């Protein structure tokens, strides 16, 4: 099988080193110009930190939805409309300038172009331990290490740039599934339970990824 481009980036490590996540964007979005990649990374940082809690506090760390709805794929106009109409977002109005909103939108739109696949690494086991994706799908594979010790990821078929996943941290592996069907695997090489394996099957039986439509903003006091 042909493996796609990819990398592993620890979210907390990315936050600590400004711009360090450019590798993520560069790997995931080879078609984007450098300045666009800058925008995506800057947007990610704002998404995670604005007002001390970040957009992620309500929308989830990967914009998958939490108290607030998913905003993977939302564009700048939708963000501006939500800031104007949703009461719970009022506190962000003065925190976000025009350029900040553009940056956040670059990041959320970038996320919308990727299928989000999540797996927990708990006590040496991946939960779920098998996922399937349609060939050629851009994927953001998120692995959360729930344990109190670091874990070392050993991958076959999915390039892993930073194999060490710190305790209670999350890795975001961005890659594009190959066009040919096949299987890739990720294991935890130093977990107490050794038989844990995450299998990523690239198959045409998987549901093709369709980026989410632009949501309608409903005014809320």
């Amino acid at each position: 099988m042909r493996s796609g481009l990819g990398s592993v980036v620890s979210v907390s490590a990315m936050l600590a080193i400004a711009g360090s996540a450019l590798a993520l964007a560069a790997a995931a979005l080879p078609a984007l110009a450098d300045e666009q990649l800058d925008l995506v990374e800057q947007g990610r940082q704002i998404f995670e930190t604005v007002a001390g809690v970040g957009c992620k506090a309500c929308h989830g760390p990967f914009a998958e939805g939490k108290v607030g709805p998913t905003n993977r794929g939302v564009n700048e106009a939708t963000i501006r409309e939500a800031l104007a109409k949703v009461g719970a977002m009022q506190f962000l109005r003065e925190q976000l300038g025009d350029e900040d909103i553009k940056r956040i939108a670059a990041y959320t739109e970038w996320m919308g172009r990727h299928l989000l696949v999540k797996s927990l690494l708990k006590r040496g086991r991946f939960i779920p331990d098998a996922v399937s994706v349609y060939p050629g799908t851009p994927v953001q594979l998120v692995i959360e290490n729930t344990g109190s010790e670091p874990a070392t990821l050993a991958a076959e078929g999915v390039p892993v740039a930073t194999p060490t996943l710190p305790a209670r941290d999350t890795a975001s592996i961005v890659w594009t599934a190959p066009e040919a069907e096949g299987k890739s695997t990720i294991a935890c090489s130093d977990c107490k339970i050794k038989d844990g394996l995450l299998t990523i099957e690239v198959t045409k039986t998987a549901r093709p990824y369709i980026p989410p439509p632009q949501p309608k903003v409903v005014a809320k006091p």
Partner: protein
Amino acid sequence: MSRTPNRWPRWLVALPAVCAVFLSPVPSASADDWATPLATKLGLTLEKSFDSSGPDAWDPKKHPLVFVTTEGPGYGGLLSGVTLPGVAIIDAETREVVTSQHYDVLAWGWKNVFEDHGVGVSPDGKWIYLPTGEGTFGTMGFGRLLIINARTLKLDKVLHTNGNPHHVKVLNTPDGRHYVMSYGWGQPLFVLDPAQDNKVVGGLDFNDIGIDTYLYFASPDGQEIIAGGRFRDSAARKDTFGNIMVRISSKDWKVIGTVPVQEADPVWVAFSVDNRYAYFTGAVTSRVFKYDRKADKIVGVARAGVEGPYGAHFGWNDKDLYVIGKGEESHNRGKVVGFIDTSLMEKSDRPVDQFVTNCIRGDHGILHPDPDANELWISCNSSFEVVIFDLDQKQVTKRIPMPNGGSSHSGAFVKYDGWSGDVLSDQNGLHGSALKKKRELLGIKDVGANEPGRPPTGGKM
């Protein structure tokens, strides 16, 4: 007493004459010797004493980390068939029931048994405390607290209490005292010292407090106990929204302050391990209140995510709060858990989610002391099981039926090294080395005591 092996038929357990041994007191301790001025003030007497020595009832070498819970009759129209108060011990790793034991209090002439609404273990793991009594809520005006030898599972003492005792939990104070605290319906806070023959060494009455209070919780540093104000009359309290939480010092058992709270029935208190915040569940309004202990004010309110919240518990991140939907002051048949992100409470009143456990009338969750487990063990009063709710997966991963089909009601995780025990977690949260571990993982330093240390011996076993 009857030790009931796993999975005996329920009818067999329901026949105390068959499987229960008559409990005959022996003069091992006199009531006069046991009494203290505080015990007298709080209405507590030593009713019976027993020689609790004997063969080991279970092997802590095979089961070094156990979950101690109750196995009782049930209550409120959903009865289990078990007719006696009892305890069950579950291996916290293998999740298998180790043993259970019931106590034939009916042989003393009791007409019935009041559900064990809680259970506690002394900090050193030597004594198990099982609240019980006769009648139902408040009908008798008194109750009993059974003190059980954890090694033999034999009764050691029966305390006569002023009201029905409710909960029992560890209290480790900043100056190194290792106590258990208890309270009940009509029974204000009393504190026992396991190292002094379980004598009453602390507490205060409702006159001292100035209001009837319901449940009491110690802060992680052990300096302070917070209790919820609650009118005893349920009809009156439903409309009493101008209420207070009462702050009590563990140093001298005096009230040191109150916190106004707009809730007719504040129930639970969960603390952040840095001692900064306390979270109160409100059963009538189905809300959770965030109290900033430093600023001394309520700084956030959120919907509980469940109707009639009871227990509220943090996992290992001290941010996500799980609220047990018991249906308190409501249907009392709850079977869900609410999920609140406490970091959002100053900005939003919305809970994050709700999860179905089908743990009927689940009331409290006890956090497993292994951070890699990150589980709440929830006692189910009316589906007669303990369910394990995985806080990472946000779902039930295991159901442990009670061995004789009885009701489970609270619990405590105890680590044993031989017969030297250490309570790591109970309904008041983490203790000792588990509390220290959580602070290390969260990078919290210099936040007070309640650090691990070998508790003083709890006397004979």
